[in-house]
């Protein structure tokens, strides 16, 4: 058991942090030059051949930097549906994608091509008219598509489950990146701002909510990284881990941002301060896809009606049997 990042993953994070601080609005082609667009694409398809954990490092850093562009829509949504030749174009940075899962399509202002779900397949949508809508979070617009013709069949709709899992995991990690930045800002502020002759961080009414914010964020991050690892490894728990991670992390991120705004006082309520942008991204993440209550309903169903419950650490299949369903115990419930 090892739940730490490799030196290469740490280096990727550092590269991402430094690059995005210097270039807050990179183009998709610039991301390709850094190798980020091919990170989880196999080498045979022109990618880097790393995995979803590396991609998760990028989601976290891109979230922190409030990156505006089609990274999420290309990799968390469309990628599982793309055949190898199209993956190669994505890896090279020549095409980005979005996927119309519902009426509101993310990154429609920046994605080059559009995939859509129809019947038992996922197809390219060609020649559609795009209307980008006004969104609270200006850094990740949604839009609607009209008309167009159904083009190439990209994949069976069976990949939709993988897409749901990937996007839940990606959003969970991204939420952690957003929340980390909001928490860091609050800590800096609480340690420097003085009122009533003392640093405000001395007051427990300030310090304790920050301790709680830290606690919720660390819990969220543990779940998000667990989910990312499950996705990377094709672990059988990936679906439930990703649902758990997104349900927890999105609510935590919204709360951490709210705590940070409160700790900042008036300045935290201004348009100039970055906090409202972080907050709006957290709210965007919470709004996308199934609601957190819906995700918990799925988990409850797995726990209460499912045949498989994942309380117990993995026995490697070669070393023992998988955990059987949790039957009611006789003693003590």
């Amino acid at each position, binding site marked *: 058991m090892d739940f730490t990042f490799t030196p290469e993953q740490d280096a990727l994070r550092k590269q991402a942090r430094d690059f995005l601080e210097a270039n807050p609005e990179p183009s998709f082609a610039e991301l390709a030059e850094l190798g980020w667009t091919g990170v989880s694409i196999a080498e045979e398809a022109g990618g880097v051949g790393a995995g979803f954990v590396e991609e998760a490092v990028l989601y976290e850093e891109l979230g922190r930097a409030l990156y505006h562009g089609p990274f999420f829509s290309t990799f968390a949504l469309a990628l599982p549906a793309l055949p190898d030749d199209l993956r190669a174009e994505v890896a090279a940075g020549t095409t980005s994608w979005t996927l119309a899962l519902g009426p509101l399509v993310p990154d429609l202002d920046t994605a080059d091509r559009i995939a859509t779900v129809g019947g038992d397949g996922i197809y390219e949508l060609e020649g559609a008219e795009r209307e980008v809508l006004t969104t609270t979070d200006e850094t990740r617009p949604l839009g609607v598509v009209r008309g167009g013709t159904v083009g190439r069949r990209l994949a069976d709709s069976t990949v939709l489950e993988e897409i749901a899992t990937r996007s839940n995991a990606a959003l969970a990690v991204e939420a952690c990146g957003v929340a980390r930045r909001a928490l860091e800002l609050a800590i800096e502020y609480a340690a420097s701002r003085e009122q009533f002759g003392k640093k405000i961080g001395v007051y427990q009414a300030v310090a304790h909510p920050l301790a709680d914010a830290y*606690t919720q964020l660390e819990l969220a991050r543990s779940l998000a990284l667990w989910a990312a690892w499950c996705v990377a490894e094709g672990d059988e728990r990936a679906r439930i881990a990703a649902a758990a991670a997104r349900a927890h992390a999105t609510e935590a991120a919204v709360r951490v941002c709210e705590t940070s705004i409160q700790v900042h006082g008036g300045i935290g309520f201004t348009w100039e301060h970055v906090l409202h942008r972080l907050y709006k991204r957290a709210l965007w993440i919470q709004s996308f896809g199934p609601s957190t209550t819906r995700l918990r309903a799925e988990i409850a169903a797995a726990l209460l009606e499912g045949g498989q*419950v994942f*309380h117990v650490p993995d026995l490697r299949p070669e070393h023992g049997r998988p955990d059987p369903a949790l039957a009611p115990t006789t*003693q003590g*419930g």
Partner: protein
Amino acid sequence: MDLRDTPEEAAFRAELRAWIETNLPDELRGHRGGAMRFEGPELRAWSKALYEAGYAGLTWPKEYGGGGAPYTHQAIFLEEMARAEAPPHIGVIGIGMAGPTIMAHGTEEQKARYLAPILSADEIWCQGFSEPGAGSDLAGVRTSARLEDGHFVVDGQKVWSSFAHIADFCILLTRSDPESTRHAGLTYLIVDMHSPGVEVRPLRQMTGESEFNEIFFNSVRVPVENLLGEVGGGWQVAMTTLLHERGTLGFALQAALEVQVRKLVALARDRGADPLQRDRIAREWIEMQALRYTNYRSLSQLMKTGLPGPEGSISKLVWSEANQRVTKLALEILGPDAALAEENAPYGGYWQYQQLRSRGNTIEAGTSEVLRNIIAERVLGLPKSR
């Protein structure tokens, strides 16, 4: 990053799982805990069995009766114990606090004398830190220790001392310099609870039973060999104890929560849960998993760098509050039956007992307020409130 067991860890887990299946008596499985666990000889026998199989004190050095195993084995051990709903070793304070403190600060003679009997469950330990006037603010300790011809003479009163009524030894924080205040002038002693002048009075808890006690020390003579650390250096030694009380217990706490959530799920399967309750069950399962993986992260950091990750400091706070929510939710699911108790209640009153006992969780081993102060000051680096 690889969250699977290594082949070596997996072999350990499989062997352990099989051992528990064979050796854990059915009547100890899913036991409700509490003071009644001390009544019969079963728990001592189970603890001894753990010791003889090499599972007690897994991470302790072999020369002191431990297993000399890496922390990952301890994590696996606690997960498997939770999975089987097996009761923990009876020597909670000895294994969790006294032992590690003796290993860190004790002389060779002390290590040789005290450590193995803790693991074999032959000797039970208690912790004498809190006093009527010194709780969260432990530096206010007043129980005195006077050095007098090769002995410390101890006078004073301790309170809330868990297991003191069955304990053979006490880790005692005293004030050896009557002129001193606060952190200086404290001395840490190992006290034989069978010494003349030691009087233990059980205190009744809101659960109706007595797990904790008052201890009165009336001119109790403690040989100087029982000094742990330096005279006047008791505060540093006490900090080691508290670190272990809150820190290395992380996995034990997660394991306890896991048992609780398993039982909550089983209860809901048994009696049904409405949609809002189902939502809360899912929340608790998620938080339990979050605690597990947070402990994994902290442990992995420890294995790699020798220092646990800072996120480990949230374990006790998270567990205690989660345990309170889980047990209260169970009572809601029980509906009107929640008002019943003991043998008249479903499942022998398990949930009624657990819910009441959980109120102590946010007080014992550092209150939640004190833990939030610690996170704010030591982890987040906010200015000190005191």
